[in-house]
């Protein structure tokens, strides 16, 4: 199945002994010249790249307080060393968060600190060399920017910030990652990461409407580019075709239908994900965010709601207002943006949605907190709402729910292993190995509580688990969308499901029943 060793799930999570350079071979494909140029980066590694890299580092040090403070503040206490899923899964020393940061910190010290300039050996400072650059390219693409290390650092040092800066420096000298940069360009030119043009989207949505009508007997709409709608739904493009993502999209549509919401999707902003964050590029992140603003203005909507997507929600919740605000042209009675879970949860609380939980009785569920939702965003008015709201939704639509171990959920959650721009086949080994801690926690609830399915609210998590679960002898369809559960349990007014539940009403059906 794989040309590398798949980690074994043991009885409990073991902190491995450190090994050196066992993942040094892992590097993603390098971006092609058009993708580099399209994002405003040099097409290939420039001459004099050493100086350009240092220059860019200096530029970032002046622009990002996080970068400056974090490079200075680490005391090497070791608190983060056993917190990264990639370290636990690979045992590679450089996948310890502090060691990953040090790949960049040692260069920072050499060029920007007194101690590093005059006593490099003493403080572990090194010149910017090709070996260093290669190491950066390898190990800064073994970080999913999940921020778990930041939670446990006494100073809140966030390796994601260092990783993003490293990737931006590499892009700036012409060494970009193919997967991210290709995708960003597609989203900036076509509107979504998959490069689905408007026609293809429209066709997909028509198919979806037919499918839902067949199932429910109701004309549930999945509108695209409808001017004057109240709500613009921005969802990850994987929701348009991938499993189990699309079942989530079906769910959003059913909720909107049931509450009588006027909504639309946009072909221009047909992507919630913002890969600009992965490469640490404010400019590219902003370009993507501006498409959402423009779509909202062009369509004349009053609200923006985001579909289930992890890093997307972090960018949307934490950065959208910064990058593309102010949103004073939208209805001030609603948060901008709002998460689909906040939307659905509100109506569930009000008792506006009829739910038949038994529809989900064939499943025993657990919930995977997606890293960037858990540690980089919020839902609802109070801190921690991002943990409570999705769980409340699941418990409202399912009878059997079990949390995984405390140290693997909420803000201590483990990344799925595929986030941060690593969801590509050329990084399969690191993806599989990085999933180990989550697989371990899942195995425990499977054994203890007979859990059959794991729900998530992130397109990357869903794709990653679909691919990785089989490596650990789980079934790939264990992973489900939260709104897929809503979709299966919701009883739409006037639907076939309602008739079935309330007893057959019309005479014709009664006659056939006899």
């Amino acid at each position, binding site marked *: 199945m794989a040309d590398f060793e798949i980690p074994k799930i043991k009885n409990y999570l073991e902190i491995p002994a450190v090994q050196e350079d066992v993942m040094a071979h892992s590097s993603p494909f390098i971006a092609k010249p058009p993708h580099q140029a399209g994002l405003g980066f040099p097409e290939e590694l420039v001459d004099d790249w050493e100086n350009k890299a240092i220059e860019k580092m200096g530029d970032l040090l002046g622009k990002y307080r996080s970068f400056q403070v974090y490079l200075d503040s680490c005391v090497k206490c070791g608190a983060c060393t056993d917190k990264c899923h990639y370290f636990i899964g690979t045992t590679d020393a450089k996948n310890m968060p502090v*060691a990953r940061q040090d790949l960049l910190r040692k260069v920072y010290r050499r060029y920007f600190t007194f*101690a590093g300039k005059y006593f490099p050996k003493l403080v572990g400072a090194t010149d910017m060399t090709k070996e260093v650059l290669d190491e950066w390219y390898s190990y800064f693409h073994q970080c999913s920017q999940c921020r778990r290390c930041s939670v446990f650092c006494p100073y809140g040092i966030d390796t994601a910030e260092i990783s993003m800066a490293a990737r931006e420096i590499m892009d700036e000298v012409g060494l970009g990652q193919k997967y991210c940069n290709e995708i960003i360009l597609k989203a900036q030119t076509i509107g979504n990461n998959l490069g689905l043009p408007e026609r293809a989207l429209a066709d997909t949505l028509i198919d979806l409407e037919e499918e839902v009508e067949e199932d429910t007997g109701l004309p549930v709409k999945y509108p695209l580019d409808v001017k004057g709608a109240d709500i613009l739904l921005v969802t990850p493009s994987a929701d348009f075709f991938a499993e189990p993502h699309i079942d989530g999209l079906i769910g959003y549509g059913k909720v909107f239908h049931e509450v009588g919401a006027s909504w639309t999707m946009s072909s221009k902003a047909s992507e919630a994900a913002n890969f600009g964050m992965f490469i640490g590029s404010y400019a590219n992140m902003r370009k993507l965010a501006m498409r959402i603003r423009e779509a909202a203005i062009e369509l004349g909507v009053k609200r923006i709601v985001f579909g289930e997507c992890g890093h997307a929600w972090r960018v949307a919740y934490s950065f959208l207002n910064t990058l593309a605000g102010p949103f004073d042209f939208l209805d001030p009675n609603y948060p901008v943006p709002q998460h689909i879970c906040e939307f659905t949860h509100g109506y569930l609380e009000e008792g506006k949605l009829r739910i038949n939980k038994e529809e989900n009785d064939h499943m025993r569920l657990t919930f995977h907190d997606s890293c960037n939702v858990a540690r980089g965003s919020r839902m609802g008015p109070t801190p921690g709402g991002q943990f409570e709201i999705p769980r409340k939704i699941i418990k409202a639509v399912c009878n059997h729910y079990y949390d995984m171990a405390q140290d693997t959920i909420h803000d201590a959650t483990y990344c799925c292993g595929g986030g941060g721009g690593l969801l590509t086949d050329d990084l399969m080994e690191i993806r599989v190995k990085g999933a180990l801690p989550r697989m371990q926690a899942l195995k425990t609830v499977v054994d203890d509580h007979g859990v059959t399915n794991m729900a998530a609210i992130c397109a990357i998590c869903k794709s990653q688990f679909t691919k990785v679960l089989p490596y650990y002898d789980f079934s790939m369809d264990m992973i489900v969308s939260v709104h897929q559960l809503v979709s299966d349990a919701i009883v739409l007014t006037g639907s076939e499901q309602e008739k079935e539940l309330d007893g057959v009403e019309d005479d014709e059906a009664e006659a056939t029943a006899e």
Partner: protein
Amino acid sequence: MSFLSIFYALLFYFATGLLVVGLGYKIRQYAKTPAPLKIPTTPAPVTKGGVVIRMAKEVVFFYSLFRSNKWIWLFGWLFHITLFVVLLRHLRYFTEPVWWWVDLLQPFGKYAAFGMIAGLAGLWARRFLVDRVRYISAPSDHLMLALLLGIGISGASMTFVSHTDIVSVKVFFLGLMRFDLQPLPSDPLLLIHLGLVAALMIIFPFSKLLHAPGVFFSPTRNQVDNPREQRHVAAWAVAEFESAGDQQKNNT
């Protein structure tokens, strides 16, 4: 006046000057560098008051470290809290008359030195015993612990083993503060202790000791979680992207 007294007087003026200027420079740098994006590690407080509480939990109790690793927390917190008490106790050598609460601290301050030494020894042991920590330790990390341990042991020795002429030491430092040079006793333990302290003050602004001001400027810990309610944008981002010609903006 002995050469030694003059040397130590100059050393302490130099060390103090460098500490104040160096630290001032770094704090100014941290304060002036913008944080262009909202990146608090969530769940995060939604009010400024909440941030003050979060920061206090970090600085006083090392809350995140406690969640992370009980051994590092035990040794690290023990070292810092006892160092703090020891430092307060040392105020008696710089004040005349000695403040009443510094007097009150005196017995605790004396024995706190042992906590300090134990904490440092524990932290240093981890650098040898835990393979992960061994891997990430540079020579400077070992030297820093050696320096602090040297300060702790030489200081405690003067309290518990071989007393120095502490009255003269106080006269020396009170003199320094008034720019009135007084003789310094020449016990080897005292000279070692003071020399190491001056060295620590000198390297403070150039080393990882910057974590002390750094923690207060850490955006993941000091930001209010309110990005939807309040627009947060850095001056450089406005200058770079939102200056006059931004048509999309004007559409609204």
